[in-house]
């Protein structure tokens, strides 16, 4: 029954399918089974790499002249057209490009409810209930999306436990959509520059403080960062000493960073420093001083010596 179906819009606007799409598929299956519907997955643009989306009952591959590379205007009309055929109960997307760029408009066009920044979703009776993270993570809102069609955009990582990467697609349909609308056309897609340092855009930061001791030890931290695919940042004394350029500084007089993980090595946690990194999702601190204030804000801590710890991590991940 279409009215109980769940549609997942694949969040792949460039490159390969990101983890969040599989998380959404996992959650979609759970919701669909609670509703007694099926899971559809919409892949817009390039059909390439769709084989791993087998978790969906139905796969819809939408192709057309203006759909690849990503073109928000063309995508919107293509998805809108398909949704009006599928008439699902729930459309799931990521609060990423698809969620922020398209879902507001899609929901408004179809008069559907929309909840964004969702971290949890369930079926309660006839209603869909969502929990959203608002006010910069300070508050959570539980809301009732009602019994009609709804859109939910979820924060990546929220349904990590449900991730369903399944190879082999049961039912794939190709759709062609002429997204040609002269009002928006593609000009260029630009990959990030590799040279410029931007610690604010890193997901993982290895951050060193005065505990690193000397310029020559920076190499050790640099190696760790490279092996982890992380950015390298530092507290002010490290910058002041000229061990790292200013662009790497975190804190009051440096950059404010919000990575997923902030690994603080030999940083005491002065207020000026905390100001710049307090909002990291997960803070792991290594400081030989058990009373260092950094442990007040860190989620995990260790009093191990950083010079013992870092080589161990490097060993573990084959640095």
């Amino acid at each position, binding site marked *: 029954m279409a009215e109980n179906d769940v549609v997942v819009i694949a969040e792949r606007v460039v490159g390969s399918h990101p983890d969040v799409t599989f998380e959404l598929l996992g959650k979609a299956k759970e919701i669909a089974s609670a509703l007694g519907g099926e899971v559809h997955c919409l892949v817009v643009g390039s059909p390439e790499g769709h084989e791993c989306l087998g978790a969906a009952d139905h796969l819809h591959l939408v192709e057309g002249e203006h759909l690849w590379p990503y073109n928000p205007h063309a995508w919107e009309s293509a998805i809108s057209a398909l949704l009006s055929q599928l008439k699902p109960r729930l459309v799931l997307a990521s609060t990423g490009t698809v969620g922020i760029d398209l879902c507001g408009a899609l929901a*408004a066009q179809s008069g559907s409810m929309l909840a964004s920044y969702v971290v949890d979703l369930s079926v309660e009776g006839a209603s869909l209930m969502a929990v959203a993270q608002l006010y910069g993570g300070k*508050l959570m*809102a539980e809301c009732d999306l009602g019994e009609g069609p709804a859109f939910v955009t979820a924060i990546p990582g929220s349904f990590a436990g449900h991730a369903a990467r399944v190879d082999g697609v049961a039912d794939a349909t190709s759709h062609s959509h002429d997204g040609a609308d002269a009002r928006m056309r*593609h*000009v260029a897609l630009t990959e990030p520059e590799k040279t410029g340092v931007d610690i604010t855009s890193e997901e993982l930061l290895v951050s060193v403080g005065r505990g690193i001791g000397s310029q020559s030890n920076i190499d050790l931290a640099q190696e760790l960062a490279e092996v982890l695919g992380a950015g390298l940042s530092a507290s002010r004394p490290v910058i002041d000493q000229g061990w790292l350029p200013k662009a790497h500084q975190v804190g009051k007089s440096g950059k404010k960073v919000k990575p997923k993980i902030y690994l603080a090595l030999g940083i005491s946690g002065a207020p000026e420093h905390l100001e710049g990194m307090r909002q990291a999702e997960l803070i792991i601190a290594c400081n030989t001083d058990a009373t260092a204030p950094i442990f007040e804000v860190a989620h995990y*801590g260790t009093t191990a010596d950083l010079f013992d710890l870092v080589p161990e991590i490097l060993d573990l991940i084959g640095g």
Partner: protein
Amino acid sequence: MKIVVAMRQIADLVEELEVDASGADIDREFVKFVSNEWDEAALEEALCLKEAHGGEVVVVGVDDVDFDQTLFGALAKGADRAVKLSCGFEGWMPTAVRAELLARWLKDESFDLVLTGVQAADDLDGQLAGVLGARLGLPHAAVVVGLEPDGDGFKVTQELGGGVTLTSHATGPLVLGIQAARQAPRYVPISRIRQAMSAGGIEELEVEAPTARAPKVTRLFAPEAKGRAEMLGDKPSEVAARIVELIRAKGISVS
């Protein structure tokens, strides 16, 4: 070029937010409201465009606590007009409602661009740019970090995550959710704001009560407190293993 900037107030996140008696909204009596920081970026981008290419900047928004402050600030920074819409709505305004009210006013205006912040901290039912774009039937884009007039339209650059950016050419009018302006929002000295205040100049308009629907909030609550760090011990090899585990659990792939 005429640029409309849609701005709004938002609870100041430096404040401790408290939940009110209904359990479904923040305590609005107690909290301080400030201009949404992304709207400030949108305003900055509009002002920069005006300075570079000429035109007019009109700031508009639905009335809210201390919204006059924001409007006077915008006028002091160089906006040409400031419009305040009121309809007697109080409390947490859903994006759908905000879009409906703004669309009602925009219908009768001519403009080339509507700029607004990419998001606000309480956007439970979606971000304004897309919802408003759909309401007006106009092309829209979010997470915009670059904007330049280009021939018969605009060159719009959006961030797609992971540092990838997309540049499109779009013919207006357009609705854009601004992530960052070409420069940090300018400082406006208090004396200029005071001048703007004494000059007045906010246009106040009554608009019809909204009809749009939004999800019903049943409960608002603080996430569990984190407290002090959980100590992983001090045996380097064990700690290292735990750290690698934690990194992987965050969905960051390390070999």
